[in-house]
């Protein structure tokens, strides 16, 4: 199985070095094509030209959730299978996922301003994404606080899985809280009905941003492996000095 082959960090590094340029190239091409498609897409009858924001907002939301999914699988890898690369994959997914979540929030806020007349409305969808963002920041803070990588990996894995179990509950509670307070009169961002003419550019943009996600994830994983090498070197250096 391919996964086992790349369990060795050195092999994974050479794999990343080979794959990354292609991945980056494909992502750049797909993004260029996607933005070109977005430029030519028609306006929405209801939301006008601002619907163009959807083409980056909605894929970012998907990738925000996808990022937590990656972290959850990596967390299982850490806790159950003890796969050597799972720690690294989990840690690397956090900043990438957080960046896409932030992108989703900021674009949503800039979409909401002309729609609602204010930068932030406690819309159920946006609020759920916002809580996801806070959880990403929590995981990153946990990684930064614990010095020893394998201990940090286990702690972060437990937090990630607890978050994954809680996310549906949070989503449900936020929906309930939102409908309790305001009837569904507010125009929702990225509602379920999408005109076919808008669907094609949306999917292309989603594909392009997903490629970017993978490229970034791989690059951050590579950095993380190098960072662990630096740490090992430090430890060896301390061991080589007298008095250890």
């Amino acid at each position: 199985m391919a996964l086992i082959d790349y369990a060795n960090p050195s092999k994974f590094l050479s794999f990343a070095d080979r794959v990354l340029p292609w991945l980056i190239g494909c992502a750049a091409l797909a993004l260029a094509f996607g933005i070109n498609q977005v430029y030519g897409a028609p306006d929405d009858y209801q939301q006008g030209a601002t619907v163009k924001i959807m083409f980056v907002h909605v894929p970012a939301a998907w990738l925000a959730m996808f990022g937590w999914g990656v972290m959850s699988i990596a967390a299982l890898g850490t806790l159950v299978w003890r796969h050597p690369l799972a720690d690294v994959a989990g840690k690397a997914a956090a900043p990438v996922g957080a960046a896409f979540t932030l992108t989703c929030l900021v674009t949503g806020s800039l979409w909401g301003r002309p729609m609602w007349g204010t930068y932030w409305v406690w819309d159920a969808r946006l609020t759920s994404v916002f809580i996801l963002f806070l959880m990403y920041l929590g995981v990153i803070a946990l990684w930064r606080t614990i010095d020893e990588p394998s201990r940090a990996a286990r702690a972060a894995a437990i937090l990630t899985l607890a978050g994954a179990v809680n996310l549906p509950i949070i989503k449900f509670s936020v929906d309930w809280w939102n409908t309790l307070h305001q009837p569904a009169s507010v125009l929702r961002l990225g509602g379920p009905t999408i005109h076919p003419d808008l669907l094609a550019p949306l999917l292309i943009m989603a594909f392009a941003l997903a490629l970017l996600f993978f490229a970034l994830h791989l690059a951050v994983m590579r950095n993380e492996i190098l960072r662990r090498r630096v740490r090992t070197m430090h430890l060896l250096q301390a061991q080589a000095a007298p008095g250890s």
Partner: protein
Amino acid sequence: MNLASHADFIVAAYGAAAAILGVLILWVMFDYRALRRTLAEFEDEGVTRRSDHTARSPL
């Protein structure tokens, strides 16, 4: 609702997305260079990992 009145928001949204992801990309690139440099410095100082050079390792 015409394009003219909201073009700034659309541009701002794409600009913000580019800025956030751009910062991440720059961080990854600079981090990578710094890590490579540190590892090269260790190489110069003669600190090596056992798995790389078992024969040369003094330990």
